[in-house]
């Protein structure tokens, strides 16, 4: 009987498994620390919460071959300028509400979730809100009473009434506006915002 070559032996693969696993995990930990720093609120990729005081747009960058968020001049939400802490609180209320209302099991956020209702990543910028003047008001009304302000686009799919309060609705809108300002590496592609001219 010939001897088992080293590459077919149990002990060789045992050691390989341990080294490969440990090595990969170590790299992941290093990348995680780097990523968390580069994506904290207030970083270049993930703006501070007070970005809700600004005009947000998402435009195709010809040099980069992808769409990028554009942060513009002041454009207050609900006619009010928020400090960073107030903005954080409002976005936090909105984010928590989206979790408590289980939005993610119909919608996608940053493309993750369920596929029964539209993606919310750039919902703040969607042309569906018709014009910028009407947008905030339409969004509040829709969130508080989706049945009577239904936006079904001929699909008969209606959002149920989730008993969202006015304050929660404002929080959700602040959260959506903030989320639309995140640099998502060009996802979604080819998205024409409410700001774009036809």
């Amino acid at each position, binding site marked *: 009987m010939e001897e088992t070559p080293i590459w077919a032996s149990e002990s060789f693969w045992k050691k390989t498994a341990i080294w490969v696993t440990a090595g990969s995990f170590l790299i992941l930990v290093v990348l995680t620390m780097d990523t968390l720093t580069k994506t904290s609120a207030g970083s270049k990729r993930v703006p501070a919460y007070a970005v809700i005081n600004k005009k947000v747009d998402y435009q195709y960058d010809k040099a980069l071959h992808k769409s990028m968020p554009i942060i513009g001049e002041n454009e207050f939400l609900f006619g009010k300028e928020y400090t960073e802490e107030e903005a954080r609180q409002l976005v936090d209320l909105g984010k928590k509400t989206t979790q408590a209302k289980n939005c993610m099991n119909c919608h996608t956020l940053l493309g993750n979730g369920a596929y029964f209702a539209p993606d919310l990543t750039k919902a703040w910028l969607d042309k569906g809100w018709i014009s910028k003047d009407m947008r905030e008001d339409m969004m509040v009304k829709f969130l508080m009473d989706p049945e009577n302000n239904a936006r079904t686009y001929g699909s008969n799919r209606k959002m149920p009434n989730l008993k969202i309060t006015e304050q929660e609705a404002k929080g959700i809108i602040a959260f959506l506006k903030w989320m639309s300002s995140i640099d998502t*590496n060009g996802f979604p592609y080819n998205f024409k915002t409410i700001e774009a001219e036809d």
Partner: protein
Amino acid sequence: MNTSRLNGVMQNAAALGEKSRACLNDFKSWVQLDSTNLSDGQQLAVKYFTVAVILFFAQILFGLLAATQFIYPSFLYEILDFNVNRMIHINAMIVWMLYGFIGCVYWFLEDESGTEIVGLKLGNIAFWVLTGAVTVVVLVYLLVQIGPGKDSSLWFINEGREYIEAPRWADIGIVVVMLIFFYNVVATFSKGKWSGIAGVLTLDLVALAGLYVAGMFYMTNITHEQYWWWWVIHLWVEATWEVLVGVIMAWSLMKLLGVRRKIIQTWLYIEVALMFGSGILGLGHHYFWIGTPEYWLTIGGFFSALEPIPLVAMVVHAVYDSGTHAFKNGNHPALAWIIAQAFGNFFGAGVWGFMHTLPQINLYTHGTQWSASHGHLAFFGAYATINIAFFYLAIQHWRGDVWMGGGSQNAWRWKWALGLLNGGVLGMTIALLIAGYEQSFIERAVEGSTWGGYFTAQNHPSFQSAMVWRLFFGTITFAGFILLVWDLLTIGKGETRKAPEIIES
């Protein structure tokens, strides 16, 4: 309340208890299973298997409700909305598979360690605690559904994070139960003997339990939140679960075909190296579009493209081992499901995953039915199949190691169950893939993912008919499930021939 009414209620309750006890006894005398065939650990294992099958039923049932709502959106509107059905559909899946895995480990723990389970009583208590908690969580999902935007909702109703919706109190309970399970595994191997399988299992369980903790925190920053959320979801289903299945598969192939331990363990180490080597950094394919830096496009694309390699290796492994043993074994349904696992895992997780994992295509497929297509075939192919294979191994032993061959009188049941379940899931997968293609083209590429574009794609005839086919194949799957349960309860009943002793070769 006056006493006579109270007495009446008490009598009714007593009568109801009596009746259900009688039903249970009737059922027991019908199935004719002899529990003296089982060791203590195996008796605990079959409890886990029983709950797993019940939750498997719930998964399919709520899947059918959700699938119906795609066709008739007003079906159960504001009673059981899509988000509730879909949440229970995917949660029941995760939990039944975990129950199955825990059951498998308890099943072979004594055999593999050569000693009795150290904390059997604790294991039993943990089972009842977990099952009680799961029941409460599901009832709250069904009856309360949603709460106000406060921390208390996340603590007591649901966390609203896909796959790990369980409220925080239940998270803590799950961690405690997993620690008890982990203690039982480690303490039993320490008391008996360690093996390569035992070592891989222990390290894998450390990772599995540890990762769950990464998903237990609320964060305002959605990029950070989804970053850690994927640590749990991806590193569970594309790394630690795969290795756990490798362990269960390794033990099963030794028992079923008599494959030599040395060969099995070498394969297991190769698979761990390939699985973790590709899967850990393959996590990056979830970090393309959530706000995380661009280097993830390269890292995630490259390593996740390698993820099918261990799955190819597993197919080779399973088919090669079966072939060298000329498919000689005493449990044909179990072997058939193991072969289904090898191919299902390769196609569902490997091929279907690879098809949309590179960022250049994922930009268009991300967040479409493409993911649902992959999810259906991958979870079924990789995890449902191995659990079902193990159910057959367990029921055979419970029956007293009787012959379970393809030529037996009632073998048509497991063959049809096998065909219907695999055919049903494959049909749903293809239907969802067509819907995914259509969405990628129309909603993403042409319309640029606006709400208008989303609904243009949803209203398209090819999408709509795909949803009808999905529901059709869902009912096929359901039929397969019913047949499977019937078969599991009756297979080997009245069989007197013993299964041949499989000797290691």
